[in-house]
């Protein structure tokens, strides 16, 4: 079954141009200024981390910096909340696992 995707609300005009970063080895396009979570959800990637003990999938949840469920691992930076982290060109991102 295809994953439920997010799309831009009709009439929302993101910044022009695209950049891309990698997530788990896949190239993900993003608009300048867009957060990592936003780009991933638009690309149909709902699972952003896997839990340390049971390897369960987790994704965007609180959207305000409390829950850390959307944590991802960014090479060179470490664990960040993907919902508050702007995507940068060439960023290497993977599922946060044992780190959270």
């Amino acid at each position, binding site marked *: 079954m295809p994953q439920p995707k*997010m799309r*831009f609300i009709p*009439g929302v005009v*993101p*910044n022009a141009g695209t950049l891309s970063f990698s997530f788990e080895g896949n190239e993900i396009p993003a608009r300048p200024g867009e957060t990592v979570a936003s780009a991933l959800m638009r690309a149909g990637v709902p*699972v952003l981390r896997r839990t*340390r003990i049971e390897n369960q999938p987790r994704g965007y949840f609180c*959207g305000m910096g409390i829950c850390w469920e959307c944590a991802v691992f960014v090479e060179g930076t470490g664990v960040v909340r993907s919902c508050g982290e702007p995507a940068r060109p060439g960023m290497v991102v993977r599922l946060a696992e044992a780190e959270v």
Partner: protein
Amino acid sequence: MANPVFTPTNANSDAPVIVIGAGPAGLACAQELVAGNRRVVLIDDNIQPGGQYFRQLPPGYSTAPRARLMRDKARYDDLARVLDSPLLTHLPRTTAWSFPQPGTVAHAGPLGSGRIAGSAVVIATGAQERSMPFPGWTLPGVISAGGCLNLAKAHGLVPEGRVVVAGNGPLVLVAAATMAAAGARVTTVAEAQQSRRLAGAALSGVVAAPGILAKAAQYRAQILRAGAAWKTGWMVSRAHGDETLREVSIAPVGPDGRPDLTRERTIPADLLVLGYGLMPGSDAARLLGCRMELRPDLGGLVPVRGPDLQTSTAGVYAVGDGAGIGGVEVALIEGRLAAHAILGTPAPKQLAHRYRTLDRFRRALNSAYVLPTPLRAADDDTIICRCEELRLRDLKADGNAASGSLNTLKTSSRLGMGRCQGRNCLHTAAGLLGLSPETMVETMPRFRPPLRPVPLARLAADRDAGPAREPDEIILSEAKD
């Protein structure tokens, strides 16, 4: 080590007023202070100011007139003008993480870390959502109402699939209407409270806050136009799916607060939005040693405040949802009232009058949504602590489950030891283990700095961090009505 005396403010003080939180309350407070010629340092952990209600799209995004974001842009633009004032220093992406001395705020962020001594501190840190765990609630595709509003407001996104919204409180309406307006397929909206209990508050609001009620009616109309079923007295019983959400089961709320599974219905869903209420974010006030009280009509544990909105810690003011759930209108007015108190200028009579009316209304509304019995949909297998992956079964089996103390349980079970610092799980675990709200508050682990997770590298940038002030316990005062 004696703390230097933090003197209450006076109009001549040179030191800036430190406002923590750039939501409606913090921005309104800053605007009034700057109008009164006071310097202000505004600290907020988001990229952009606005807080929850005025949450902004990423810098540079624009919107065509047809974009239906329901975001009150004109009022925000007016407030945000204060950011251009030379009297104001805005520290975005910055966390206020400790108060090494009363009146001094330690802050950290990618733009720098340090500490600032203020002539007064205004806590405008807003609310957080209540959790209501049920089987399957950790699946990707299950999100909170605030998370849903931020999808639209902060990211400009709307889901492509079917959306179910469920919860208890005004945010259910707001989230459902926002999704519907943005073009989502909202199929079902379930409010746990019975409609007859909500009717009384609505009536009192006709006089107190006609504007707010008109907005609520508009939200309802938006939801119904979208063709969604609107149910009262129903709750989520479980969510189904493997890697992501696939279906949601809802059921009427039984007299014991549990879902009545004999009437459970399962509906397909790609996104489930949960809004089981807001509670004031009491962490900053607690760390500052403010006297606290449990107030159901204000949404939970709040700092005790005088008529000037000052807490029991002199020079520390608390405004907006962090001091009692009240929504944007209350937050804006409280911000202004606290500014007048700090400036030593009388608040305009009209403002004070409007505040009294709104305050009555929000307390009636909060009380109207209080359920006769707390909801309970978790079974033994349900994850309660998302960070440490603790199921209700694990908590019940813990040697300290019957200790009657959250703090004791935390040390043995790891409940609340993860990155959310207990914000998501402690309040629900307490209820599920049968602790009364009073016992929960009395036995809650104390908040230690940092208030929110801050990368070590950024803390290290604050070279003389030293030991932070840690009140030993929550100081509760007698609740009064």
